[in-house]
């Protein structure tokens, strides 16, 4: 009986174990997998990230030069980060904010200009 009483009495003098959430926000750990960050600079639109993605959250459209991620579908497995041959993808420890847009669309700048006319000539 005394065991629990001791615990309860010490808890009265301790500060709460919880935080007043919206006013007091704990900084995410630096190791935390928060969201995928895409840097379109080196992207070659190879589509490996799309193939590796288990929940099909990433869509790469070559015709529109568009890279899309559905943040609500992403499970932070980081398969795409490991698989990317050009290291365009990285992990940020920032959480996806409440009320964020479901999809993030990034237009990839054309890297290899001579390739476009070749494709057209075919």
């Amino acid at each position: 009986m005394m065991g629990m009483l001791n615990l309860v009495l010490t808890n009265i003098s301790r500060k709460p174990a919880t935080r007043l959430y919206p006013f007091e926000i704990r900084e995410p750990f630096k190791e935390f997998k928060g969201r995928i960050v895409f840097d379109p600079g080196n992207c070659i639109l190879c589509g490996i990230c799309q193939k590796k993605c288990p929940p099909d959250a990433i869509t790469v459209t070559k015709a529109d030069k568009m890279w899309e991620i559905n943040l609500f579908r992403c499970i932070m497995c980081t398969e795409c980060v490991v698989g990317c041959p050009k290291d365009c993808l990285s992990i940020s420890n920032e959480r996806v904010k409440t009320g964020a847009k479901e999809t993030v669309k990034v237009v990839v700048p054309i890297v290899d200009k001579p390739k476009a006319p070749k494709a057209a000539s075919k």
Partner: protein
Amino acid sequence: MTTVIPFGPQHPVLPEPVSLKLEIDNDVVVGALPSLGYVHRGLEKFIDTKDYNQTTYICERICGICSALHGITYTKAVEKLFDAEIPERAEYIRVIVGELNRLHSHLLWLGLFADGFGFESLFYECWKYREEVLDVAERITGNRVIHSISKVGGVSRDLTKENIDMLLKMCDSLEPKIKDIEKVFVNNYTVKQRLVGLATMSKQLAYEAGTAGPTLRGSGNAIDVRETADWDIYKDLGFKTAVAKEGDCYGRTKVRIDELYESIKLIRNAISKLPNGDIATPIKGFPTGEAIMRTEQPRGEVVYYVKGNGTKNLERLKVRTPTFANIPSLLLMLPGVRLADVPIVVLTIDPCISCTER
């Protein structure tokens, strides 16, 4: 004359939906009939659309609480298909994450159990300690509950020096706290009044009913897959099976508390023996053949059967989860129990319905 009353699928002690039709005479249960199928998601069929690497993440999502060990068991089963040699460091990291998983699962269960018999402050106390374990797990793996650390061929993240210090610090701070709550669970008069002699299963009956995990060990059977199955690493780490002779709810609680100490010991031993080297070997090609892997989850023994047919998708994945084995024992335990004690008895098998139905 008997009356049939429904227990669940929505009930305050049940985090997940399972329905029991209880046949009661006055307020004593004389029979129980379970009905399952509320959270069936068809995950075993769903793997047809994913390749064997992606299936790891599906297996981890079979259950939220024992997710790490689902992932580890699946990856180990697939590695058997490839006859792959996995770096020792990866195996040790898997053990550490698996034991962290067990720590948080048992602390969660102890809390829910305390809540089940109306001991709210003990419930909060257990969940407060669980948060410490989750913080460490989050810093090691990057995710709070579904760790996603095991992949086919090894692990995806290495343990840094900082992680190891953090783990040791957590072990040192958690041990005295568990001793505090152990005193309450084991010695407290009120708790003992509710638990001792409730839903007793004899050693023989528990074995014959095919129970698994702490339910089996709470009846005096020293059977733990960590000691007996083909994952040798636990033998090197000085693992000892926790057993209680009582066979009642009190015994099953004691086993789980002892397993908390055992997990802390295993984490410490794994860190002291942690070898250097790679954390993953590249695996090429597609799996063929069949393999079975068994590991001990927080709730008991899980069996994974995988069959490859030389394509990137597995032909068959079959999971036998511990709760599936424990539900028949629940039906054997319930007759003779008073209606007010049914929630506690249902909780002592640590039911994980999402696991069972997949």
